[in-house]
């Protein structure tokens, strides 16, 4: 577990306040159509606000948002973010959006007060999601924010709920054999 990349270094992709999951993160048809396969979702991530985003982002890039990111407790967009290796730093998220992001294995921090004032799209960022450090190398400053709670780190390390449950089952099966 210690080798999991809790620190991401990449470019900032900044969004504003009150971004709905449906429309703002992924098109609504992906949600109502119950598309949960990352390869189906990735081409449509932020499609309605930034077409072609998936062709420009790189693993390690950080999505930085204002208040109320991801309204509507949906998971489709987080599946794509996890698969693309993106991090997520929000001023606030509805709790069930935060839970959905964790459940999909996204490296996420919320309650990061005024974080959108501290960066612009394209800035070089370094974020430690385990310890709660946010560093903007372009503007040369650093902030501390509430990290992911310890009790939830294992879920993210294992890629989300499915990975966590897979490991739980593997351990249980091994225990029953021994």
């Amino acid at each position, binding site marked *: 577990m210690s080798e999991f990349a809790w620190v991401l270094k990449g470019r900032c992709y900044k969004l504003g306040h009150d971004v709905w999951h449906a429309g703002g993160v992924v098109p609504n048809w992906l949600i109502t159509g119950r598309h949960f396969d990352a390869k189906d979702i990735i081409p449509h991530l932020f499609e309605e606000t930034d077409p072609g985003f998936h062709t420009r982002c790189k693993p390690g890039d950080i999505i930085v948002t204002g208040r109320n990111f991801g309204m509507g407790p949906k998971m489709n967009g987080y599946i794509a973010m996890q698969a693309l290796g993106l991090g997520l730093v929000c001023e606030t998220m509805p709790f069930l959006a935060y839970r959905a992001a964790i459940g999909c294995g996204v490296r996420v921090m919320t309650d990061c007060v005024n974080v959108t004032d501290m960066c612009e799209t394209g800035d070089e960022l370094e974020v430690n999601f385990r310890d709660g450090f946010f560093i903007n190398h372009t503007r040369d400053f650093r902030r501390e924010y509430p990290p992911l709670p310890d*009790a939830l780190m294992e879920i993210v390390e294992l890629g989300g709920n*499915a990975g966590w*449950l897979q490991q739980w089952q593997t351990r249980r099966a091994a225990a029953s054999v021994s």
Partner: protein
Amino acid sequence: MGMTAVEKVLAAKSGRSSVKPGDVVSPDPDYIMIHDGVVMGAKRELDALGISRLAAPDKVLMVTDHDVIYGSPRAAERGAFNRKAAAQWGVKNFFDVGRGGHGHIFPMESGLLLPGMFYFDNDRHATNAGAIGAFGFRMGSEISRVLATGTNWVMVPKTVQLTLKGQLKPGVHARDVGFHFAAMLKQEKLTADLDYRVLEYAGDLDQFDLASRAALCSTPTEIRAYGVFVPPSKAILELAKSRAQRPFIPVYSDVDARYDANLTLDISQLEPQVSLPGSVENAVNVSEVEGTVIDHAFIGSCGSGMWEDMTAAAAILKGRRLAPNVRLFIAPGTEATNRRLAAEGLLGIFIEAGAVMLPPGCGPCNDAVIGPVHSGEVSISTATNNNAGRFGARDAKLYLGSPATVAASAVAGKIADARKMN
């Protein structure tokens, strides 16, 4: 520092002496509820992982309430799948078609769900548990983890206290209180963030019976409350004792408990409310929309499907006929209520009035699988919400009201004040 009711329950179920908001715990639930719409997904997910044995099959309540009469071949296929899943999982508490009714009502009616209890549910309307003084927490698709392991992580939520002052006037219903409360928040006449909070009622609560308490739980859920709690009155405790299938210990907040916000709402002058299309928060006095012609009406849902809701509707419909332009669907919450409606003559009142009876369960409130509206139609109902598309066509106009308001409107053919019919 004292604890709120939800903090006490989560502490007790997690084997801790105390918890505070933000703590992450894994409570041992009294029950694990899953409804007919999501069994297939959970079963396939667990099967793919090789998990065929549930952690606590005796705690599982499997409920058929979302699509009860199979309006499509796909629904029938799902029903068959669910029956097979219940057998394979060894779920004995399987309340299939015609066996229980709405999962957020019959456990309270039948003495399964009791004050002080905690359970996991896939569905967000588990908040109804607050009517009896219990807590139900929504897990969504993570219900599969609960089924497999017996628990899941829960971050202890903050609690907002809402003190109701005064007695409701005759003809004003608990649903009206919820609609009005939501409007007060939207209009910023009250200030609180309900996201992932428990809304705990206080004040003049003795006037509310169990059905009214379920109604009080409904609207806060639509404006993001994660739990609702109505401290059990003496009458509620007596009711629970009379039906209890096992011992229970009611839980109340400590006097020095810490709340995220304390709100007060005077309900003594409240008028019947109607929520305008688009959101429960768009509530206005019924007088502002009286006369709006309707096509469709529905009485039921987890917020308004109990016996007392049915009697409120029957009081209006008795001896009257629906307007020729209106179709009215009624879905009693439970099989027990349905039987009582037949035994006490209310079923006859509904049918004589021209209403169409639906099986106990969610009715059109679940994705309009039954009794939907067409494009451009106007509906008034007691559904949990009136978001665009709730009853099918996204451009239909969906109003909300209390059971009495809906019944009166169905008779008048237009939105009406039930007090003028008494």
